[in-house]
């Protein structure tokens, strides 16, 4: 078998080496995506620029400001001397948050009345604004508790807080989007190398008529398909490994679970992608058409419907149903499970079975179509 496949594999690697288009799809696109996703597509809310208007400048107000600044999320920019400056700063986008402390702040606290502070938040990015309000609330709450405790101890009561909550974020404690995105990114890159590159390489043979010369030789259609898929499978796996290494170096993403399991899951997903590529190649007759079909059936669903960027649970029901056509949806569950949670096969055996079914169906259809086409 290997003797028959070898010449095709060798030939395929030589062609990949010379084909600038395929080469750039295989190398530049993953690199660019990793950089874009890692740095630009950042959902993290951190280092929130914050200005303060302290109408009082008392020890209490300074204490409150201090507890904001030591919380770790806010970055102090300036002290406003005039309340009206707040609006222009937010309009310009120089700060996301302005903390306004009224002149009677400490008087209210000391006399046991409820004191008020004002938070002006830039709501342009709704997600970020929600997060900022959350952080600010937490800081304020903590400060209030401190005051309550102080007051209680002044009147000699042993103080305690009835419920102390301690939130712990598992699997991605620093809430870094990179960690969440990298598994999706690998799926996306594999969809490109697997589906698009494979489809293009087979369709190129049709377009240039070289497939005819193979058809009259004793090479069987299955050998040709395998001989073409093996190089792309290898390249895809190497690309996946490189993304993992790069993600480790740049974003500290480590694989928590079993590398072996990760390898097998990725191999399955690569097979699914190659099957899709083969199917596309039996439909399209030119590289251009093949690229477009491949983009629509693999790249777009992987980006939009797989849960890579948008959570599937928040999609309308019919989109949730459609999302099942993309194998990336299932691969992502497995990947995130292994990379972030370090869980074993018991957590995602259903997804593995789905991938197996997907591969069987797609490969069966495409091999049939491929054979029909050649004879």
């Amino acid at each position, binding site marked *: 078998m290997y003797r028959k496949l070898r*010449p095709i594999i060798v030939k395929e690697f030589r*062609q990949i080496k010379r084909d600038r288009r395929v080469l750039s799809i295989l190398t530049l696109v993953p690199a660019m995506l990793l950089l874009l996703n890692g740095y630009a597509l950042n959902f993290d809310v951190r280092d929130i620029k914050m200005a303060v208007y302290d109408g009082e400048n008392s020890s209490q107000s300074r204490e409150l400001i201090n507890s904001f600044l030591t919380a770790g999320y806010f970055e102090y920019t300036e002290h406003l001397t005039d309340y009206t400056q707040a609006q222009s700063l937010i309009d310009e986008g120089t700060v996301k948050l302005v903390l306004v402390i009224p002149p009677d702040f400490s008087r209210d606290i000391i006399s046991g009345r409820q004191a008020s502070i004002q938070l002006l938040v830039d709501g342009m990015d709704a997600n970020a604004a929600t997060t900022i309000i959350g952080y600010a609330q937490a800081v304020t709450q903590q400060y209030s508790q401190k005051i309550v405790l102080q007051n209680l101890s002044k009147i000699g009561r042993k103080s305690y807080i009835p419920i102390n909550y301690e939130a712990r974020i598992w699997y991605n404690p620093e809430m870094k989007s990179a960690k969440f995105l990298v598994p999706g990114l690998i799926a996306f890159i594999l969809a490109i190398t697997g589906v698009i590159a494979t489809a293009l390489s087979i369709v190129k043979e049709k377009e240039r008529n070289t497939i005819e010369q*193979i058809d009259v030789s004793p090479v*069987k259609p299955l050998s040709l398909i395998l001989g073409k898929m093996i190089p792309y499978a290898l390249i895809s796996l190497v690309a996946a490994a490189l993304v993992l290494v790069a993600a480790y170096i740049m974003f500290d993403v480590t694989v928590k679970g079993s590398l072996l399991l990760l390898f097998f899951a990725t191999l399955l997903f690569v097979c699914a992608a190659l099957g899709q590529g083969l199917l596309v190649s039996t439909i399209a007759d030119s590289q251009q058409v093949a690229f477009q079909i491949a983009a629509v059936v693999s790249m777009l669903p992987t980006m939009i419907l797989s849960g890579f960027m948008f959570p599937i649970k928040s999609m309308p029901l019919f989109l949730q149903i459609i999302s099942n056509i993309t194998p990336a949806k299932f691969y992502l569950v497995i990947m995130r499970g292994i990379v972030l949670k370090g869980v074993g096969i018991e957590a995602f055996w259903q997804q593995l079975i789905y991938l197996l079914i997907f591969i069987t169906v797609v490969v069966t259809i495409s091999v049939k179509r491929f054979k029909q086409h050649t004879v």
Partner: protein
Amino acid sequence: MNTIEVENLTKRFGDFTAVDRISFDVKQGEIFGFLGANGAGKSTTIRMLCGLLSSTEGIARVGGFDINKEPNKVKENIGYMSQKFSLYEDLTVEENIDFFGRVYGLSDSDLNDRKKWVLDIANLNGRENSITQTLSGGWKQRLALGCAVLHRPRIIFLDEPTSGVDPVMRRKFWELINDLSAEGVTVLVTTHFLEEAEYCNDIILINAGKIIAGGSPKELKQNYIKHPILEVQCSDVVEAMEKIETQSWAVETSIFGTSIHVNVEDEESAKANIRSLLSSHRIDVVNIERITPSLEDVFIYLLEQQTKKT
């Protein structure tokens, strides 16, 4: 001994019959020509014989193997060169040879021998590392032939091998084909260049999927051109033809470029008749001469017979 036997081979695409119950035999070592206009069914026939296309009806045996029952045995024994260049343009000359050699399972030493041979016949020594795309048409075509016969097939199929190649290269190509035939390789070639058909040992003429005549070039000329052919060069070819056509002594008249070919019963009387007829219509006669018939004459004669029938 027949290496190719075809019986009632038929190919239908829906309602359209591309090849209609054709039968013929090809002897070993023969150069067998398939003649016909574009779309006559030549390529379809060749593609069926190579196993690229399944037949609708009929039987064909290539090298002793049934094309429908043992297509893989057939494929091992044939070489095929398609009308459209079908080597890898993005591989080098040597990489193409290596690839096809390996695909046919040649051993290292065998492959090296054959590589030398291909480079020699294609005149590509020193250009082993050129990307195939950069070669000119004639070179590409000889490399394609070389790759098609790398594995020393006993039968080769050439589909319009010389289309798009200049006359000098075309001549050299036919020398190569003659050499192969001398070594005992059976060559089945399609062409629409009628002068090329003269190189063939045997020819069949195909029109609209049917064989309309067959035989050696000499036989064809003897069988179908029984009358002397006169070539008439004159001033107004179209008008002259219209006049001659209606005469009882003109069996067949057709225009060949700037002259007219007339099949006549008797050479001498016809020459005189043509001169007097044309001068009475003020057409200047430059020259009238008896010519040896070409296959083109035969082909046109046969096609005209066909149209008369239908």
